[in-house]
């Protein structure tokens, strides 16, 4: 597994040719091994941007390049060997075991029906070990807890041996302990990572860079400590945001309240 540079140059997207853009031209560049957090309110275009990065949708304008190569110039399988994604969709009713789910990650490395070789098993063993999944290997995926499932899905993505890993809200529906585990895992992977997050404080703690989106427009890109000001966050999320420093650790920490004058617009 070797991290690659991810370059996004002026990508935009709209559901149809005539429809209004859901994502307006966005550009950024992440050096190999860095973690980018994508933040913004609901409907800001975070998922849309991620879909363009993991080659689910073709951008209306612009290019996505991994290690200098346009992902649409690659074959679907070629792209799948460079970019992996952990999404919110999960199968459960089909009786696959945790190990079988992880094995799915080897799919882009096979041609046709080439039976899985010893190389596959070595990779699967390694990623399952890294995520301490061996005790769960033969459990039915549907019987696992939310945190365990997320770990299996991350292992599945790692089994692809990608250069870039994309995670869509990986901490959703997880309890505090599992959130922390996922976050600390992200930091140790050594891959180029793009992660969408709801929790700004988590983004500050985890990400090297942050991209702020609002209504499909990029609001800023840069290291969270310098980029995320009271003004930008308040404006983006339509709240009163105040950035403090935690007394014990000194880490930056946002607290939020509803703006006084406008009140709830329900």
């Amino acid at each position: 597994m070797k991290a690659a540079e991810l370059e996004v140059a002026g990508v935009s997207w709209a559901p149809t040719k005539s429809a209004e853009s859901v994502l307006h031209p966005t550009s950024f560049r992440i050096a190999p091994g860095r973690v980018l957090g994508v933040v913004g309110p609901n409907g800001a275009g975070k998922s849309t941007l991620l879909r363009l990065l993991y080659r689910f949708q073709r951008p209306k304008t612009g290019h996505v390049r991994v290690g200098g190569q346009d992902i649409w110039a690659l074959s679907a399988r070629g792209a799948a060997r460079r970019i992996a994604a952990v999404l919110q969709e999960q199968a459960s009713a089909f009786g696959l075991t945790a190990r079988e789910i992880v094995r799915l990650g080897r799919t882009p490395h096979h041609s046709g029906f080439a039976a899985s070789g010893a190389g596959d098993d070595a990779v699967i063993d390694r990623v399952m070990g890294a995520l301490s999944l061996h005790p769960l290997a033969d459990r039915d995926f549907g019987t696992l807890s939310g945190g365990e499932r997320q770990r299996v899905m991350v292992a599945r993505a790692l089994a692809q041996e990608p250069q870039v890993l994309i995670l869509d809200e990986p901490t959703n529906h997880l309890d505090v302990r599992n959130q922390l585990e996922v976050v600390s895992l992200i930091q140790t992977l050594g891959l180029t990572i793009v992660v969408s997050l709801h929790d700004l404080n988590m983004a500050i703690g985890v990400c090297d860079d942050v991209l702020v989106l609002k209504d499909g427009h990029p609001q800023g890109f840069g290291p969270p400590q310098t980029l995320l000001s009271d003004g930008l966050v308040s404006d983006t999320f339509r709240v009163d945001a105040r950035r403090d420093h935690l007394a014990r650790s000194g880490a930056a920490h946002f607290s939020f309240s509803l703006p006084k004058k406008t009140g709830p617009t329900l």
Partner: protein
Amino acid sequence: MARRPAFLWAVGLIGVAVLMVSLSIAVSVGAVSIPLETVWGIMMHKIAPGSVAAEWSVGREAIVWDIRLPRAILACLVGAGLATVGASLQAVTRNPLADPHLLGISAGAAFGAILALLHTGLFIGLLTVPLLAFGGSLGATLIVLAVSQFASATSADRLVLAGVAVSFIVMSAANVLIFLGDPRATHTVVFWMLGGLGLAQWDQLAYPAVVLLCCGAYLWLKSGILNVMTVGDETATTLGIPVARFRLTVFVIGALITGVMVAFSGIIGFVGLMIPHIVRLLVGGDYRRLLPICALGGAVFLVWADIIARTIMAPDDMPIGIVTGLIGGVFFVWLLRRRLG
């Protein structure tokens, strides 16, 4: 869970053994009961003439070889085919309730077959009914996919709802065809629609056998992709799979198998829903194992359903669709309870 290779081989071998025994019993049981030794003797005699001394009457030989054996083999083919289609559709629709019957594919096939039987005549010989049945099942499949696109209902649950809706419409159209058809022929057609294997003949078994072998082999070769499809469209895309094209391919293959099976056996529901569920409990969800064991399970199930259909109201044949519908309905209730619990 016991999913070691030895266990799987055991399941497979036991399955084959059970199928062989079931076939023998199916040939032995009936209005004229024929002892198992005689059944095996006749089979040996037919396969390798001279290996056993013929100590049976010509009549018995005809019952075993010309009537009951082709019927039992047709039951195997239809059961294996429907179970394989059901399992594959469940993966690509990501819905454990998918089944050729529920998705309207069987209704489309029935429409095509009725068109051939009552209206167009056998204008290209024996192949007319299976071909038009395939045309009908393919048409219904495409309508289901189009409706789910049109209603922007590509989510798994909605696809099945679209299938149920199309199934009703196509079934009505098929009934109009029966209504407009020659009243003297309608009795046969209605009886055929309820499902029955009584028309099985050696020279026709080749069609379902070839279709099942080719399509089944293709699906089995793609079992790794079927596994991926159970997780979700976007994840499958990130694994390099052309999701829309693959789903369409599986639907067309499902229509082909279903069309040919319906042409020879009428509408037999719930096999494709029930068998994959039971097999999953037994060998897990990996399609590499699931598909072959489903084919075995479907074959055994339908052989027994046919034995019940032939004996419960002996000497009359009850339509086999009634038997599978009854068992399938009860199974559905059990499934609901299990999923809620």
